[in-house]
């Protein structure tokens, strides 16, 4: 056996339990118990899982009985019943007051445990449904928690932090503007700038990779109040005098194995050598997204003078006694000055001054870090919270129904206890104890499930293609949430049945008669089933809407053909290419790739259709178009080489494609789409007309650009030769399966510059699929929860109907005895079941129609009131209700009249 410094967990746990449960033993004896347990634990005779389980169950039993025994002995000693420790078997005495309470609680616990153990099936079903409901809601809560509440750990007094945004609620700032804010806002102690992006990192002897990085002002760590575990953070002038980086804790562990000698090592960041000066604290996540940056570097010098390059967030720390409003009013003054000094950057095209908006950090998280066009985070949150409430509500009603049924079955037992003098309070507390035990068990297992799932997420096994490490940790808020939910559901689903059951009608109950089942008691159960049915309908309709919208998107004509097109993204800026060298590279790459076997055509574009990233072009003027007052002309655009439209199968409807003659020095040309023509040229022939300084030479058919199914928007294309860029995407159409050719393509490009990092070579098909990722995730979440809800609703309807039928055995028997046809009995019962679920369905339909409006942001090609989705959900639930009612109905029809009448 190895000698451990710290004893195994089992032994420590045992020692804890001994001290906790048998405090009267004293430290000396407790130590001896632990020593003996250790001997037993390491004894080879107790090795193996089964032997260990047996050992533990014996020990736990021993702990509990000893604990009770010791407690009883102390109590008796206090009452003077026994003056000496006894080695004789004990006798029990009844008690009063607080001791009675203790006794009652322990009695309730034992009674509840025994009664649950007698009906293990019931206990299992209840714990499972609650675990299901709680883990789904806890999972969704931990998502909400990450998005909304959790601030980066280690950040000092986060409530003192504010964000300063330019141009909109979360608009970015330029570095010179940031400096003005930092130096001139008196209410701020200090302010820092940060910008999250992707950089290419090259660690010696490793392939280059793309990681998340924050470009920050040198005081970023100081303003946040976070530090480093190794080395230092940035100091003033770091950005001016040296290329330095602080690496993330995770990156340090991953790439350098946590080597403390990492300081001073050099890594490439976007092709430039940087020296590692520090390692950040673990768990330092981004300020806006819950994404873990892998490194931080000072904002590049060339951007520090550019007032028109708005790419940074600004975070300020308030001075003592100062608030958001003071910062806002001082920032407004600065903005007014900037508007008059730099109208080009501070006045929008329509002549309106650009505003400054100050928000607290918490408000910043609400908005998420995405651009303006993404579905608002608040909408996602609202949907998640709704799903959470629905699932939990359904699980609770289900369990409450089961508890009611059980309480009803135990009427005789309860009546006996009442007759023997049990008070109502005692009965309620005992029934409540049962439900709290169940809820506690479910809460604990839900927490474990969530812990396990988030651990899986963190380990990257469930990365689901996320581009970066997202930090979903189960923190105290999640734990408190689960505990509160468990306690709340325990009380809610336990209290109603307990109160109902503790007021039994003594005489018929004692006689073992069911008695009448209608009236108030049954009203509660009806209501619960209706809640379940309505809730499941809402979830199912939501899920169907998403599925329909995905199908719609898949069917929709994209306006181009992504099949068999490879996309290789190249960023020559990372290798410090000059613009001329870049142009040379791209003009070389086309013939080289074209000559490869299997390649049909090659073209280059700045962005990929439906892919990540977009470029907006502000237009000063369009010939013949009079902008409305306050209108700005901002149009999506792309930069492409000749042959691009043919390659992506986007047909020209008028004019010509770009040619090799459309290069620098030649007249500037532009190609637009049909919607552009309709919108800005009133549908007239646009050829030869001017867009800014460029002349329209062609019109292409409308296509989808950002999201499948979206309405067509104006779009323009410029000639690459007239607008060369260093970061481009090479498109290659292949004759056969693109995946078989892709490796050869990558090798060829790599051959042109072996040091050039080639990131994520992909296919156009895969990139367009990414465009529907949020929709697919939402439909998956709703689909899974919808099916779970459907199952629970079925269980609920079945439970109520089966119980109702069993209570009416006599009535059914009488009907059959009087000559009623069994088919008629079945119809009667099914009709009642459908009436029950029908009411729930009507309510659910109404609520669903209201709620699905919130989904409209995510849907395309499908109305939130899509009849297929509404009727489909309705149909599924109706079928489920019929199925759930049919079983008890058929059973009732087989009732032997004599049998049922004799039962009384």
């Amino acid at each position: 056996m190895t000698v451990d410094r710290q004893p195994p967990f089992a032994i420590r746990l045992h020692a804890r339990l001994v001290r906790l449960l048998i405090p009267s033993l004293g430290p000396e004896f407790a130590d001896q118990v632990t020593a003996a347990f250790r001997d037993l634990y390491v004894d080879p005779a107790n090795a193996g899982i089964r032997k260990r389980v047996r050992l533990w169950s014996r020990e736990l039993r021993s702990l509990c009985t000893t604990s009770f025994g010791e407690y009883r002995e102390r109590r008796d000693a206090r009452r003077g019943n026994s003056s000496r420790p006894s080695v004789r078997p004990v006798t029990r005495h009844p008690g009063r007051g607080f001791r009675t309470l203790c006794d009652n609680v322990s009695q309730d616990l034992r009674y509840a445990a025994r009664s649950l153990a007698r009906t293990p099936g019931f206990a299992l079903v209840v714990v499972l449904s609650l675990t299901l409901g709680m883990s789904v809601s806890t999972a969704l809560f931990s998502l909400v928690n990450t998005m909304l509440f959790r601030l980066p750990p280690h950040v000092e007094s986060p409530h003192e932090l504010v964000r300063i945004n330019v141009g909109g609620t979360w608009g970015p700032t330029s570095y010179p503007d940031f400096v003005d804010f930092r130096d001139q806002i008196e209410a701020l102690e200090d302010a820092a700038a940060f910008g999250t992006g992707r950089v290419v990192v090259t660690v010696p002897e490793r392939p280059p990779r793309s990681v998340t990085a924050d470009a920050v002002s040198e005081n970023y760590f100081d303003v946040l109040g976070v530090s480093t575990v190794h080395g230092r953070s940035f100091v003033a002038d770091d950005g001016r005098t040296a290329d330095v980086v602080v690496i993330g804790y995770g990156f340090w562990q991953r790439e350098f194995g946590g080597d403390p000698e990492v300081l001073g090592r050099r890594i490439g960041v976007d092709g430039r050598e940087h020296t590692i000066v520090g390692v950040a604290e673990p768990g330092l996540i981004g300020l806006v997204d819950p994404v873990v940056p892998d490194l931080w570097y000072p904002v590049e010098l060339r951007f520090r003078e550019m007032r028109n390059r708005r790419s940074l967030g600004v975070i300020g720390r308030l001075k003592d006694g100062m608030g958001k409003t003071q910062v806002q009013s001082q920032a407004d003054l600065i903005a007014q000055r900037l508007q008059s000094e730099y109208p080009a950057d501070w006045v929008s095209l329509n002549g309106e001054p650009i505003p400054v908006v100050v928000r607290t950090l918490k408000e910043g998280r609400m908005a998420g870090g995405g651009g303006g066009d993404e579905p608002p985070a608040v909408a996602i949150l609202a949907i998640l919270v709704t799903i959470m409430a629905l699932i939990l509500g359904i699980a609770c009603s289900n369990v409450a129904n089961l508890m009611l049924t059980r309480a009803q079955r135990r009427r005789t037992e309860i009546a006996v206890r009442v007759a023997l003098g049990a008070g109502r309070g005692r009965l309620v507390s005992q029934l409540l104890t049962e439900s709290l035990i169940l809820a506690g068990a479910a809460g604990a297992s839900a927490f474990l499930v969530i812990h396990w799932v988030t651990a899986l997420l963190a380990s990257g096994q469930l990365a689901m293609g996320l581009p970066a490490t997202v930090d979903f940790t189960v923190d105290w808020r999640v734990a408190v949430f689960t505990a509160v939910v468990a306690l709340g559901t325990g009380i809610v689903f336990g209290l109603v049945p307990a109160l109902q059951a503790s007021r039994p009608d003594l005489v018929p109950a004692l006689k073992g008669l069911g008695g009448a089942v209608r009236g108030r008691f049954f009203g509660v159960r009806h209501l619960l089933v209706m809640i379940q049915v309505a809730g499941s309908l809402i979830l199912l309709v939501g899920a169907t809407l998403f599925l329909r919208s995905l199908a719609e998107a898949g069917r929709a004509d994209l306006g181009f053909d992504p099949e068999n097109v490879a996309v290789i993204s190249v960023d020559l800026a990372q290798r410090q290419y000059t613009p001329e060298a870049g142009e040379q590279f791209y003009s070389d790459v086309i013939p080289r790739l074209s000559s490869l076997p299997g390649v049909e055509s090659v073209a280059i574009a700045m962005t990929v259709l439906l892919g990540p990233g977009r470029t907006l072009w502000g237009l000063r003027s369009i010939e013949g178009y009079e902008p409305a007052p306050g209108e700005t002309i901002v149009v999506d655009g792309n930069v492409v080489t000749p042959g691009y439209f043919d390659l992506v199968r986007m047909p020209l409807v008028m004019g010509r494609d770009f040619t090799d003659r459309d290069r620098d020095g030649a007249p500037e040309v532009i190609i637009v789409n049909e919607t552009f023509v309709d919108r800005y040229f009133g549908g007239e022939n646009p050829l030869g007309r001017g867009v800014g300084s460029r002349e329209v030479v062609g019109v292409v058919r409308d296509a989808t650009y950002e999201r499948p199914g979206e309405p067509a928007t104006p779009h323009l294309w410029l000639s690459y030769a007239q607008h060369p860029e260093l970061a481009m995407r090479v498109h290659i159409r292949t004759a056969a399966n693109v995946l078989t050719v892709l490796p050869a393509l990558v090798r060829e490009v790599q051959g042109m510059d072996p040091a050039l990092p080639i990131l994520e070579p992909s296919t156009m098909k895969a990139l367009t699929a990414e465009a529907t990722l949020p929709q697919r995730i939402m439909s998956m979440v709703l689909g899974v929860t919808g099916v779970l809800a459907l199952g629970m609703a079925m269980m609920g309807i079945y439970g109520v109907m089966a119980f109702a039928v069993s209570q009416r055995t006599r009535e059914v028997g009488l009907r059959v005895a009087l000559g009623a046809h069994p088919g008629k009995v079945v119809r009667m019962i099914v009709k009642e079941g459908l009436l029950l679920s029908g009411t729930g369905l009507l309510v659910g339909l109404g609520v669903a129609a209201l709620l699905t409006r919130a989904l409209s942001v995510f849907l395309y090609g499908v109305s939130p009131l899509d009849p297929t989705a509404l009727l489909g959900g309705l149909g599924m639930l109706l079928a489920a209700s019929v199925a759930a009612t049919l079983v008890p109905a058929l059973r009732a029809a087989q009732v032997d009249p004599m049998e049922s009448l004799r039962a009384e």
Partner: protein
Amino acid sequence: MATTTNPKSHLPLQPHVFQILLSLIQREMHGYSLIKDIGARTEGEMVLGTSTLYAAIKRMVKAGLLEEIQRPADSDSEDGRRRYYRATPFGREVAREEALRIRRLDEMLAGTSLLGDAASENTGV
């Protein structure tokens, strides 16, 4: 210490208390070996949990049935927390009285048909 000198006042003994006494009358032992010894003697019928054992030992020491002794010199135990116990003369007396009580019980039973039935049941299976 509030101990009584009348051995009969402790009767009847709890079964595990009697077993502990039986073991410790023969030789001094610590907790772990006690559990094994009792388990072996009762052929696995009585395997004590550690807390039950020490709660009993504590009460027995207080009642004067057991005493703690210095570790035997030949002990190979490296664990200082192990304590050894043995039965006191009074403890022996109590055990003896309990044994006599059981013997009397046995003799009483011999006059009934109770055990005869049980024996035939046992052999019959």
